[in-house]
């Protein structure tokens, strides 16, 4: 897995305009009836930071997102956005927030431009201001030529870009993006992320996003893995990968269960079975690759060897696979 060419510095130190928190979450819990969705979240997101929330569906991402967007009041704990309590002063928080939901929030019967005008009015922008900002965004997101088409006539990818334009239109200080690049082709996805980095550098924008793309997660300053209602790890992608240490070897065997026992007996290490393949974290993995192939030549379909990726971090933490673009570098 190659690093994206213009990945921001890990940690984002030096680029943050101030050290004050954009978001401060303390002891946040939430449950739907009997089912707990959030089991005590503590998290500070710095101003000017690009923070990725990752995790499988049902892990609590959406609930956390709704709390931050002021749609759901926290049941336990406290959440402040720019030092305003989201439960006590949602209207003050909303003013500084840009939100892009996973589900479309544009009106298909209105044109792209009309959608943006309507959105700008909801945020109290006057016509001149909103038209100027809309023109910039339409240009930047490649929508300028379709500005007078109704959104219902646009392809899924273009409609998604209208959502993104809407979220940024009123110049928010914090944008919450739930799977922003779903439906975008890889080029548009990279381009949009670069634009977020640009807005962060220029205007001090703080970004919190969820994603299923490892490539996007790699470009975040910090990421937090959510699993079963908890944040199981929060750090810069490079630090998270460094924590695993050594190499990751994945053995695709004809009979994974038998192979797991044989590797355990022979090499004394305990492979994890992930998605039908055996996964081993170890120092000097290249030697193991040689030895394992020599030991069981007929029983192995393939062996993959590499430095740990974020996918490996996630598997290490949860024992589950997660990213959509792993193993398909052409599509990522």
């Amino acid at each position, binding site marked *: 897995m190659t690093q994206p060419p213009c990945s921001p510095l890990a940690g984002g130190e030096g680029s943050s305009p101030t050290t004050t928190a954009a978001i401060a979450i303390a002891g946040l819990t939430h449950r739907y009836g009997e089912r707990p969705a959030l089991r005590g979240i503590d998290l500070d997101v710095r101003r000017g930071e690009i923070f990725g929330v990752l995790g499988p569906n049902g892990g609590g991402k959406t609930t956390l997102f709704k709390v931050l*967007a*002021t*749609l*759901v*009041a926290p049941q336990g704990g406290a959440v402040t956005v720019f030092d305003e309590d989201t439960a006590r002063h949602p*209207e003050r928080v*909303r*003013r500084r*927030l840009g*939100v892009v*939901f996973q*589900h*479309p*929030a*544009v*009106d*298909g*019967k*209105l044109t792209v431009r*009309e959608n943006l*005008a*309507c*959105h700008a*009015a*909801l*945020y*109290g*922008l*006057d016509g001149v201001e909103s038209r100027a900002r809309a023109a910039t965004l339409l240009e930047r997101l490649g929508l300028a030529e379709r500005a007078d088409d109704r959104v219902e006539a646009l392809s899924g990818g273009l409609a998604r870009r209208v959502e993104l334009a*809407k979220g940024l239109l009123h110049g928010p200080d914090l944008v919450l993006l739930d799977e922003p690049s779903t439906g975008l082709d890889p080029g548009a996805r990279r381009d949009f992320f670069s634009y977020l980095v640009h807005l962060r550098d220029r205007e001090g924008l703080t970004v919190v996003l969820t994603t299923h793309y490892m490539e996007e997660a790699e470009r975040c300053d910090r990421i937090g893995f959510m699993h079963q209602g908890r944040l199981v790890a929060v750090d810069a992608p490079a630090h998270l990968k460094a924590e695993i240490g050594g190499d990751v070897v994945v053995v695709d065997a004809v009979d994974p269960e038998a192979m797991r026992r044989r590797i355990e007996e022979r090499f004394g290490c305990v492979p994890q079975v992930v998605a039908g393949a055996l996964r081993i974290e170890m120092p000097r993995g290249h030697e193991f690759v040689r030895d394992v192939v020599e030991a069981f030549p007929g029983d192995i379909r393939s062996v993959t060897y590499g430095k740990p990726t974020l996918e490996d971090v996630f598997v290490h933490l949860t024992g589950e696979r997660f990213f959509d673009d792993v193993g398909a570098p052409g599509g990522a």
Partner: protein
Amino acid sequence: MRGVRALWWREIVRFVRQRSRLVGAFAQPLLFWLLLGGGFSASLRPPGAPADLGTMAYFYPGIIGLVLLFTAIFSTIAVVEDRKSGFLQGVLVSPISRGGIVLGQALGGTTLAVLQGALFLLLAPLVGISLSPGAILAVVGVIAAVAFALTSLGLVIAWRMESTQGFHAIMNLILMPIWILSGAFFPASGAAGWLGWLMQLNPLTYGMAALRRCLYLGAPEAVGRVPALVPSVLVTLAFCAVAFCAATATARRSR
């Protein structure tokens, strides 16, 4: 205020771009009027209606009420659809207040209702009603007030609803009876005792009475026994205020 105006404007743009709604909201009451009025006139006369007033003429203000009711229903269904489509969620995270959202929605529905109600006014000469410019103003004012109240009432229901299916059931159980028991269809004076009481408690009865009185401003003797103009207007305005506050309160509760 800018946000209220944008939501109001959006309702109108959407309406214009969905032609079936326009046809539905106008053609259906027209059909009802011709079928009911025409069918009843030969055999029946609404009991208690003025003797020289035909059924077509008696139903005429009632059908205007039905136009307003249909428009209100359609525009509140739009709220349920907005929730399903996700548009409403986008509005809910914006800084506009819940009251502002409801006001934009209610004014949008009211505007559409007034335009369609006014279109129906063009048929007034067919039932022998001639309107002075002052009377037209009064009628349009009453139509606007009734439409605002009905749309707000619809919003109270719509903001609680998850799907349009449940909405239809509630509509038929609440809004249609309110219209039927408003004097639009038969006068309170001719109704059975308990029904008469219900009609007197029905706020729309006073809206319909105000409408009738304004339509026959020059010939009050043709109106028959309905509540007087001033109390009717006052009750209707109170209906507006109560329904709007209830809709806003409902919107506040559903975050």
